[in-house]
């Protein structure tokens, strides 16, 4: 039997939802019929609006999809202005204040506390400036990710930006691909560093060379750059999968055909009766890569597919645990002789005033363009050599550093109990507290300058915990009999040539003992590692019991003010935080 969600989608979904959304906005939140709320909130996701958790009724998270994380000159200012004007609600965050933007692990932007009545005005402003929330959530083509500095990166094999732009153009608002069984996450990478993180997406295009020609009478052959195709990656629900190689190479001009073919294959064959089994990763489990390839060839494309080409995976360094360019922080050369400067945004959150300030700086020192990475950081592009020193001296860069402490630099955190329905624990503010404590109290060995800690509030894995050195995932435990927020600890995950998911070695550590646990772990690593051994290699060389012993949870002078069940509050940081004190749904204005 199809699910409720499928029934709602078949009644109305995609582009057509917009008119009703605007009518509801016009007439007020209360105009959504009582018995249609679930259906409409599900449909609104397709337009990037996600109802915040209970206790925050009538307020929405709004996600803006910025393909490949590219914000053209002026667009960051638009985001800052919208955040400043509309992303204010009844709750104030003690670290980030009242209006802020979140840069996400899929190179998108999230705003919170959005009221339905403001949506038309926000959409108008976004669209005037070339931005959109279309398909940012919901069962469809999500924001396409890749190496954020595509087209500029000195390390590029092929410029993926025109390909991404074409895919975005073709599959956003495309009725044939608007209603898929589940989300469809696509990554296209043209650089040799692996920074598009294709392995954890539903569909990945990765740079590869293919020898073509040679069949005719003149046996001239030629190496052409295109993409190898992988399908069925994803991290959610204790079922992490790496995308599987389907032995296909495509030239850039055919990417759209193959991507459309695979999206249609998923549309027609994905499981619409069980949402937990709907992601294409499960279809690939069931069919195997060969059958995916055969079905694609026979039913979904009208040309002969090439077999896979020679990839460049051995050069992958992004989030690989060792080697150069684990992330894109710092000053790096562009192809055109200017530079891009990656700035660390701790847990991806930036106050609206800082967003506007950064937009000014990007204009003053670069071209005004800014790009977002999958590590929740921001990159200012096109900065000439002679402007670098002055740019680096800007006071804003004291906060958003191009050379941060490894614990700041390596921190990624999801939304958590502040706004998210699925969450088990508080996340972003906690990760800020962890990072500050670790920076002040823990020394990594001198030769280790990257250490990734990812915190996800539940198994959906929005912070991509399984691909970090230290993975933290929301749980509960009892401490002295009382329930407290806790974290499972996993170790040794990462991407690179041979990606690996973290092994969950220590379960249910009370949150106030986690910094001590990481300190003890780092101490054991420093004492026991072979010379120059990376943390990831160190983890690979030990069994789970040995690692569990290294983790060794311990209370320290770190204090956690959010030990209680933060989900039972209407907002964890409110003075009167109980559900009874929750604000009423926002009045229509």
């Amino acid at each position, binding site marked *: 039997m199809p699910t*409720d969600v499928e029934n709602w989608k078949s009644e109305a979904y995609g582009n057509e939802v917009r008119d009703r959304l605007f009518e509801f906005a016009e007439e007020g939140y209360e105009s959504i019929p*009582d*018995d*249609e*709320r*679930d259906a409409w909130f*599900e449909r609104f996701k397709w337009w990037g609006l996600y109802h915040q*958790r*209970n206790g925050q*009724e009538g307020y929405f998270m709004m996600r803006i999809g910025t393909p490949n994380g590219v914000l053209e000159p002026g667009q960051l200012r638009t985001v800052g202005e919208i955040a400043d004007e509309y992303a204010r609600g009844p709750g104030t965050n003690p670290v980030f204040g009242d209006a802020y933007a979140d840069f996400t692990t899929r190179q998108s932007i999230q705003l919170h506390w959005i009221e339905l009545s403001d949506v038309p005005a926000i959409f108008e402003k976004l669209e005037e400036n070339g931005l959109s929330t279309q398909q940012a959530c919901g069962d469809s083509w999500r924001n396409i990710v890749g190496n954020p500095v595509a087209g500029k990166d000195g390390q590029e094999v092929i410029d993926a930006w025109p390909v991404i732009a074409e895919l975005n153009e073709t599959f956003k608002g495309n009725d044939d691909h608007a209603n898929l069984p589940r989300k469809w996450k696509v990554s296209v990478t043209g650089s040799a560093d692996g920074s598009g993180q294709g392995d954890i997406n539903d569909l990945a295009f990765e740079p590869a060379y293919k020898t073509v020609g040679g069949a005719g009478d003149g046996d001239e052959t030629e190496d052409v750059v295109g993409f190898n195709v992988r399908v069925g990656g994803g991290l959610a*629900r204790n079922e992490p999968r790496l995308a599987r190689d389907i032995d296909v190479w495509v030239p850039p001009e055919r990417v759209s055909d193959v991507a459309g073919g695979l999206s249609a294959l998923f549309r027609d064959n994905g499981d619409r009766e069980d*949402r*937990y089994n709907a992601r294409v990763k499960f279809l690939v489990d069931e069919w195997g890569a060969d059958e995916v390839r055969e079905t694609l060839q026979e039913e979904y494309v009208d040309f002969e597919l090439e077999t896979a080409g020679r990839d460049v995976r051995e050069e992958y360094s992004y989030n690989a645990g060792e080697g150069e360019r684990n992330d894109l922080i710092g000053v790096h050369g562009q192809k055109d002789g200017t530079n891009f400067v990656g700035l660390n945004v701790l847990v991806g959150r930036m106050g609206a005033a800082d967003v506007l300030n950064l937009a000014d700086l990007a204009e003053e020192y670069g071209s005004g363009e800014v790009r977002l990475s999958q590590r929740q950081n921001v990159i200012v592009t096109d900065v000439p050599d002679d402007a670098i020193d002055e740019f680096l001296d800007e006071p804003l860069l004291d906060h958003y550093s191009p050379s941060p402490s490894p614990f700041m630099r390596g921190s990624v955190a999801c939304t958590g*109990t502040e706004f998210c*329905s*699925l*969450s*088990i*624990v508080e996340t972003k503010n906690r990760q800020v507290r962890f990072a500050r404590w670790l920076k002040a109290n823990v020394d990594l060995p001198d030769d280790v300058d990257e250490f990734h800690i990812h915190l996800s509030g*539940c*198994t*959906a894995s929005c912070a991509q915990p399984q691909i970090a050195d230290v993975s933290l995932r929301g*749980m*509960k*435990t*009892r401490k002295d009999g009382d*329930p407290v927020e*806790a974290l499972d600890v996993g170790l040794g995950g990462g991407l690179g040539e041979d990606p690996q998911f973290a092994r969950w070695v220590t*379960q*249910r550590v009370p949150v106030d003992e986690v910094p001590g646990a990481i300190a003890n772990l780092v101490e054991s690593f420093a004492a026991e590692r072979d010379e120059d051994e990376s943390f990831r290699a160190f983890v690979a060389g030990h069994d789970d019991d040995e690692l569990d012993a290294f983790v060794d949870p311990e209370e320290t002078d770190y204090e956690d003010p959010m030990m209680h*069940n933060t*989900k039972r509050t209407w907002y964890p940081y409110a003075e009167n935080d109980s559900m009874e004190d929750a604000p009423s749904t926002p009045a229509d204005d």
Partner: protein
Amino acid sequence: MTTRLRVLDDGAWISVDDSREVRVSELWRLDAPGFCACDLVDLVVENFQEVGVDGAGVEARVYGQCIACGATGTTGWVPIGRVRGGEFTEIDRSAVRRVGP
């Protein structure tokens, strides 16, 4: 009048008549000998799988973990509340819930 019961947002909560009533992240005490070896399961509710009715009682199958022993899995039918006169009332959170097959 029939009551509309749904699991929504990837198992994050249970909707009763289009209103959010029961959510993940709670700790529930279960009398569920099949789930783990503990006398009482101390369950972190991570995901709702299914919701159903048994007379006036509303029950759900949930995915979660017993924090006393670490066992994970999906439970049988756990009582979560009752519908009376069209109104849903959640079971007291500290109650021990007897789990059906």
